[in-house]
């Protein structure tokens, strides 16, 4: 052991090392999830349950001009799913910090970011699975894509971008709290963003003083961008803006959230 050569192999491309080790960590996380599936199953199926419940309860009561309630609701369920999935990310990271696994990773010659990007990738995979289930359930209760194939692909791309950006917020939460129970106790904040939004009802039905916040906070902006991309130009009157504007606003929120919280996360991460 002492006489063996030092295995210092400078990678030709640091990006290649990051990509390879991101996959190693993501696979580990997914294996972990597969073997302890209780929380993941709940997280992955909750958008389906939520969707069916909301549609049953509200579809008759809420009228969205120019759209069916199901078409209005399903894109919002996909964004809600990013938030619920993100809380799982935060919990997973907190547990890894507590267990000492993050220390192990940081003492290995893997790229510094790999444990974080690996977590982001594995959680994205779970969220996309949940999204696929939610869309399938949505189609069963009347959801339809009314936009072209390209626009729907862009919707998928935007959903991925939202997940990857929001990851940094949840990573910061997980690393700073290091405690699943503390993370649990922050859920009311996320419920505030999910419910004081356009997710279930048009913002115009909210009290006036809430409308400014409800219409412009990121969850609403993401919801509307996904609605525009999946429902096509026909939805513009109901959403109040055209697709380009809504998507640009959503991408701007993603960039802002990613930059701010990636910086915070990296600071916290280096001080674990």
């Amino acid at each position, binding site marked *: *052991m*002492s006489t063996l050569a030092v295995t*210092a192999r400078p990678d030709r491309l640091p990006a290649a090392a990051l990509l390879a080790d991101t996959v190693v960590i993501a696979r*580990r996380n997914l*294996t972990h999830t597969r073997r302890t599936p209780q929380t993941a199953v709940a997280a992955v199926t909750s958008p389906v349950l939520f969707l069916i419940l909301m549609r049953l309860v509200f579809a008759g009561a809420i009228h969205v001009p120019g759209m069916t309630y199901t078409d209005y609701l399903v894109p919002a369920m996909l964004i809600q799913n990013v938030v619920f999935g993100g809380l799982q990310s935060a919990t997973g990271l907190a547990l890894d910090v507590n267990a000492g696994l993050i220390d192990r990773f940081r*003492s290995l010659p893997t790229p510094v970011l*790999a444990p974080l990007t690996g977590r982001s990738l594995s959680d994205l995979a779970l969220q996309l699975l949940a999204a696929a289930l939610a869309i399938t359930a949505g189609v069963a209760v009347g959801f339809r894509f009314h936009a072209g194939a390209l626009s729907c692909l862009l919707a998928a791309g935007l959903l991925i971008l939202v997940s990857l950006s929001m990851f940094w917020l949840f990573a910061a939460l997980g690393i700073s709290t290091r405690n699943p129970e503390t993370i649990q106790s922050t859920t009311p904040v996320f419920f505030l963003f999910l419910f004081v939004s356009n997710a279930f009802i048009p913002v115009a039905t909210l009290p006036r003083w809430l409308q400014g916040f409800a219409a412009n906070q990121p969850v609403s902006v993401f919801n509307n961008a996904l609605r525009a991309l999946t429902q096509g130009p026909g939805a513009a009157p109901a959403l109040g803006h055209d697709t380009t504007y809504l998507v640009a606003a959503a991408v701007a929120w993603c960039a802002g959230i990613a930059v701010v919280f990636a910086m915070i996360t990296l600071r916290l991460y280096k001080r674990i």
Partner: protein
Amino acid sequence: MLAAEPIIDIAGVRKSFGRTTALDGLSMQVAEGKVSALLGANGAGKTTLVRILATLLRPDAGRVTVAGIDVVRRPVAVRHVIGLAGQHAAVDQTLTGRENLIMVARLYRLPAAQARQRSAEVLERLSLTEAADRPVRTYSGGMRRRLDVGASLVGQPRVLLLDEPSAGLDPAARLELWSFLRGLVAQGATLLLTTQQLEEADHLADAVTIIDHGALVTEGTPEQLKAGLGYETIEVALADPARLPQAARVLEPLAERSPQTDGPAARISFRARRAAGALPAAVRLLDGAGIAVEDVTARRPSLDDVFISVLGRASAGTADARPA
């Protein structure tokens, strides 16, 4: 033999957390191919030092090199030559032993095929081949710790940093871990381990460094440290407890401090100033005074005694150096 370069060289390292000073200008060296133990009470700075060596923390001042590589300037290069385990680096309980090792090997930047092969070899060395494909959750405490401590061997590190490797193990698992660690050293590994258990240091270490309040108190081989104390503890059991006070007076000239008496057990113990001849002298003195002796034993100082003695002196020294 040439004077070997130390594998770990620590010079004047300082680290504070807010107003708490964890390391206060610590300097020490670790020789390659040996087991070095870092001893200290809780909060002495042991874990901080290990975390600096493992590139998890940056020192505020001073210079630290591992295998000649500066931990602050080239942390990634250092990570190629170290393996961290123990209190602060864990394995994934839901993965199998083999999956854990392959993951660690991949993160040492080994290609997939080599990672698999190296993991199989290390499982063999850890005597975990049979349990290799079971989730770690099903392992005994000793097996899990062995995997934990041995996981970084897949990267063939030159130094293993072990932070309290036997913390939380039952005595049987601890003995098993010790024999495993001795096996590693026989194969040429360099270990730096922190411990609060003096017995562990005595058992494993070629060199012991005692630190307190983030500074070096003393260092040497366990034998040197014990011999440095220059006393032994003599324990005498009397036939008649009533004669204890008299016996204490009789033995006083031999004792470094006043002898301790234990009435119900009719025992008296004291530290003899000189190691040689104290035991026969004690018997002669008691005999001369007509006190019947049931049993006499002499105990050489343990590392515990060293620890208590140097830490006592160290804190007194600090008080002298910095009058209020």
